[in-house]
């Protein structure tokens, strides 16, 4: 074991982790924004809403992420009209290609998670809302969305962890994120064990942070499900009430 090498590689790997964070963070944000309307289309009863959403989810869940990355990165650049289009400055960059591929991928999974969450809301609530004359938008905003998002949390945190690990594939399109930079150092030092174990540790730490954040969010938004006496001491509430 070359501990000196491991120690010396930590700054490089941390730099790689920042890129990993960026890739996962932006894809997660864009993915969430796209997944919400997708899930609504997916639960629609109209076939021209349902079919495209179903097809989209079917395709992106049914193909490997690596294939999707290659399709976006190497595939699109094959066509001259894409290289001449206004999209090229973005599609030219491996950074954005990775984010596009990750976003498309995570949108499909998140959309399906949200679909399940929406359908988990008791139908009686929706009927009740309709009976008091709520519009469709208000129904969505007040009844469906707040509950569905909370129900989706555990599944969504799972999806994010998968996305984090999937982001290692960005190294195949020249991005020096955590895995990319690890592979590069290995190519120079021929010490795969030391560096992969170090990278693995960093992924574990990132995953740990992610799960803690989600646990906290989940705890925060599911207070209504817990009996009052189990509520933990919260700041700002005086002890003597």
């Amino acid at each position, binding site marked *: 074991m070359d501990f000196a090498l491991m120690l010396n590689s930590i700054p490089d790997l941390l730099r790689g982790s920042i890129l990993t964070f960026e890739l996962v963070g932006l894809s997660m944000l864009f993915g969430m924004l796209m997944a919400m309307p997708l899930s609504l289309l997916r639960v629609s009863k109209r076939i021209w809403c349902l079919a495209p959403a179903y097809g989209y989810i079917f395709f992106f869940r049914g193909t490997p992420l690596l294939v999707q990355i290659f399709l976006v990165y*190497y595939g699109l650049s094959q066509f001259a009209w894409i290289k001449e289009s206004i999209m*090229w400055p973005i599609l030219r*960059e491996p950074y954005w290609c990775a984010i596009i591929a990750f976003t498309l991928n995570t949108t499909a999974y998140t959309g399906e998670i949200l679909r399940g969450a929406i359908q988990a809301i008791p139908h009686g609530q929706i009927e009740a809302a309709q009976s008091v004359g709520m519009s469709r938008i208000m129904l969505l905003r007040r009844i469906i969305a707040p509950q569905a998002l909370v129900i989706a949390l555990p599944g969504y945190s799972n999806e994010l962890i998968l996305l984090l690990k999937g982001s290692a594939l960005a190294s195949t399109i*020249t991005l*020096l994120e955590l895995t990319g930079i690890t592979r590069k150092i290995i190519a*120079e030092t021929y010490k795969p064990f030391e560096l992969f174990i170090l990278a693995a540790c960093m992924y574990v730490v990132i995953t740990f942070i992610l799960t803690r954040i989600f646990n906290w969010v989940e705890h925060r938004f599911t207070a209504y499900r817990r009996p009052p006496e189990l509520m933990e001491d919260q700041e700002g509430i005086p002890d003597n009430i």
Partner: protein
Amino acid sequence: MKKAVVFLTLVLFLATSGLAMGGDVLKIATEGAYRPFNYVKPDGSLSGLDVEIARALAAEMGLDKDDYELVIQEWDGMIPGLLARKFDVIVASMSITDKRKEAVAFTEPYYYETGSFVAKEGADLEISKQGLKGKTVGVQTATTWARYLEGVYADVVDIKFYDSVQNHNLDLKAGRLDAVLATSFYMSSWLESEEGQGCEIVGEPVSNPNYIGEGVAIALRKGETELKEDLNAALDAIIADGTHKKIARKYFPVDIYPYEK
């Protein structure tokens, strides 16, 4: 018993040395299975860069067709055959390595495995620190060329590392890279293929010995200083008069030797 061994060794030595010395014919060994460097043509004759270089050297040394002979020797028996005096020199694209230097002597190198920068036609790229400033160059990771780029251009060039030569060529075609750097032999054959259309070699081949190694040379037995000097003189001569370049150009569109040294 001991005497018998000594006697036999002596007989063998005399017999083999007699073979090589017989009639003062210079025997040149090559492998004949390493296209385009040395190979057997359908009619049974030898051809290739090594073979033509060997012929040019022989001519330069004033040897007639009867004064030298090309023989085919399998690769693994090449150095043992030389040491056993079955032939006198090896012209078979043999790279100079420390291990081989323990067993045989080498002339000056007659070619180097070089690297070539390739860019799109008309890119008007100048291969220098100035010309490559701010450019993106692709290279296969963990290769000689990656080390070279990092060693020489790291401060001005955005180096992108690829898992394969094919992938950086794809990105060169796609316009994501301003240039790529890879083995000249590979790149020149790629440029001749359909995928390589529209791209061209730019600048001089990369042949920095600090990164590339010592080159490819003719091997001969240690101690044959006179032959070595003759070969080196002949090599200098065919390089100086352009014969070397003319031969190399038949096989490679890029320089495989730094003629301007």
